[in-house]
């Protein structure tokens, strides 16, 4: 376990180091990326099984005793996030190898991608608030490079917005860290759990809101989401897919972790969270309806879907948090596969703008199926995974008697169907109209890799629906951990 817990952070860094040296050996770089991400995936699956059986586990980096040193902690929530994230990273890198874009054109793709993987893993595994800041910075440094890889004018312009907004968020994060350290004298999450309880109410609420703002920018919550729909779609497609699937969810993870672990029940801003959740859902989906480009529609849906996760957190019940955990798992898989399909359509038809393409279903029937399954799942149509996730949240909302948010979530689901239908009827139905005249069609082997990666993700999303029972039971155990935090604290600080 000692070894396992550090591998997802350290192995990708080692891989990045080797890959930088092999700039001109693309095949070796690919081999390193795929091998390392496979090992990371395997080790996180083993960790998930062990943690589900034995409870949370922690390791002190450099053998400095907590709370002075940095702790790496894995509990059910961290483990499931890590498993989903590493499967996505692996699938997207396979897609990227087949994609004639960022990966094949730049020697720096693989090293930076591996550093991104290390940063994401560190954000999930860290048990230390300052180390979480470092993890965010590692992830962001990598994402700055990835989002502008290619150096087109619009990429640099939108990349600048992305960099500036994230620098502001990082600064606010650093300031809140200073406040928290000044008030409690520690940055270890488990230790903070003990010490924040002694603070006066006003200080506690202030700290809670500050952290909400910081992570809200990363997670693209309602008033702070404006940077996302413009910056994500300009990157090269595999990168957009991995950002859309994972990066905002790292923010959501940080919100859920900090709000449940750090702050005692009486100062949790439940009402505020529900309000933000509702607004995020509605504004996001309205934005999606107003767009006419596949990638931009899907980007706005990220915002809208974040609202559902916040809804589960805002209820602060086991049922609500279980719904949120299930929703995150389902959403990461479905969102990533939708973006990958958008990439395939763009490859095949030459554009992702709805006005310029149609008849893709006739051109590539397989693509239509690969789009339809996650699209229906995103909208929450039974029997797909999104239905189970939304049902869990709606039931949790009803049992907490928060009817307003339940109504909002159902209306947003209907609007989601409408905007998915817009993509379907414009791009997939009708007679064949494409921008390309065959010149853009990638090599056969590349195409197989890309559709293979996408189909695997779609299959996983179907598997989530088929094994919804066990997965939901697991989500409930996870939510139980998040509400009853004493085992987590005990495993980090010692009995």
């Amino acid at each position, binding site marked *: 376990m*000692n*070894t396992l*817990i*550090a*591998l997802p*952070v*350290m*192995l990708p*860094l*080692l891989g*990045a*180091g*080797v*890959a*930088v*040296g*092999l*700039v*001109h050996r693309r095949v070796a770089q690919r081999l390193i990326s795929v091998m390392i991400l496979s090992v990371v995936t395997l080790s996180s699956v083993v960790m998930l099984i062990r943690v589900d059986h034995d409870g949370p586990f922690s*390791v*002190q*980096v*450099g*053998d400095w005793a907590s709370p002075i040193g940095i702790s*790496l902690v894995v509990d059910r929530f961290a483990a499931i996030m890590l498993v989903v994230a590493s499967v996505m990273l692996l699938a997207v890198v396979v897609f990227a190898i087949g994609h004639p874009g*960022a990966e*094949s*054109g*730049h*020697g*720096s793709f693989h*090293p*930076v991608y591996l550093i991104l993987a290390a940063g994401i893993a560190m954000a999930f595994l860290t048990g230390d608030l300052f180390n979480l800041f470092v993890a965010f910075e590692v992830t962001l440094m990598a994402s700055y*490079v990835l989002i502008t*890889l*290619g*150096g087109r004018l619009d990429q640099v312009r939108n990349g600048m917005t992305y960099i500036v907004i994230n620098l502001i968020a990082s600064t606010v994060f650093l300031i809140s860290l200073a406040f928290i350290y000044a008030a409690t004298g520690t940055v270890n999450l488990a230790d903070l759990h003990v010490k924040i309880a002694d603070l006066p109410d006003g200080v506690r609420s202030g700290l809670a809101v500050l952290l909400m703002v910081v992570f809200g920018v990363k997670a693209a919550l309602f008033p702070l989401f404006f940077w996302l729909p413009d910056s994500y779609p300009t990157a090269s497609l595999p990168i957009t897919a991995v950002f859309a699937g994972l990066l905002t969810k790292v923010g959501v993870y940080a919100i859920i972790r900090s709000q449940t672990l750090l702050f005692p029940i009486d100062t949790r801003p439940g009402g505020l969270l529900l309000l933000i959740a509702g607004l995020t859902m509605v504004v996001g989906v309205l934005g999606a309806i107003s767009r006419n480009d596949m990638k931009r529609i899907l980007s706005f849906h990220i915002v809208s879907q974040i609202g559902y996760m916040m809804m589960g957190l805002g209820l602060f019940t086991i049922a609500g948090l279980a719904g949120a955990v299930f929703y995150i798992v389902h959403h990461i898989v479905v969102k990533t596969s939708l973006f990958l399909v958008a990439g395939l359509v763009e490859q095949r038809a030459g554009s992702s703008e709805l006005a310029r393409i149609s008849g893709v279903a006739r051109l590539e029937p397989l693509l239509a199926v690969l789009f339809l399954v996650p699209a229906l799942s995103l909208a929450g149509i039974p029997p797909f995974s999104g239905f189970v996730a939304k049902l869990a949240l709606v039931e949790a909302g009803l049992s907490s008697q928060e009817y307003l948010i339940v109504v909002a979530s159902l209306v947003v689901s209907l609007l989601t169907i409408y905007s998915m239908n817009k993509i379907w009827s414009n791009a997939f139905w009708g007679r064949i109209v494409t921008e390309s005249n065959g010149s853009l069609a990638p090599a056969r082997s590349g195409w197989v890799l890309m559709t293979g990666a996408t189909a695997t993700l779609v299959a996983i999303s179907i598997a989530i629906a088929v094994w919804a029972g066990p997965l939901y039971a697991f989500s409930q155990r996870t939510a139980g951990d998040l509400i009853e935090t004493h085992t987590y604290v005990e495993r980090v600080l010692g009995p």
Partner: protein
Amino acid sequence: MIGRSLILDTTVRFVFDAAVVLSVYLLFSGHNQPGGGFVGGLVAASAIALRYIASESDDVRFILGIRPATVLSMGLTLAAATSIAPLLFGLGPLDHQSVEWSVQVLGAVHLSTATVFDTGVYLIVIGLLLRIVEALGDDPDDVTDPVTGGPDEGRS
């Protein structure tokens, strides 16, 4: 191309060696005193950057005989490998061991595996700063990848 400055050129020749020695001193003194791989790397990189200012970047590349990306790669590999190595012996990540023994002439020598990690950091800082200096100071028509220094095939 602006002509070389004789004064700068001569000064840099003297300063360069001294600065590199200082950087190595900082690297090794870092364990218990101010210094360390990061600071040492900064000093060494500024020394090399001075040579860039004094002469042309091609000259410096020729003197070094190694690409910045290779330095970066060596450093990151070394640092990451030292963080993983303790795991093989059943210790926690980034755990370090040290020995103390006395050598004739030098006296008591304190050796720690943390120095190996710090050397990795030292190389990363040098590699990265050199890459930045090259990217900023290079001929804009010379099309190279901004991160690795390799040819940028994607831009064609």
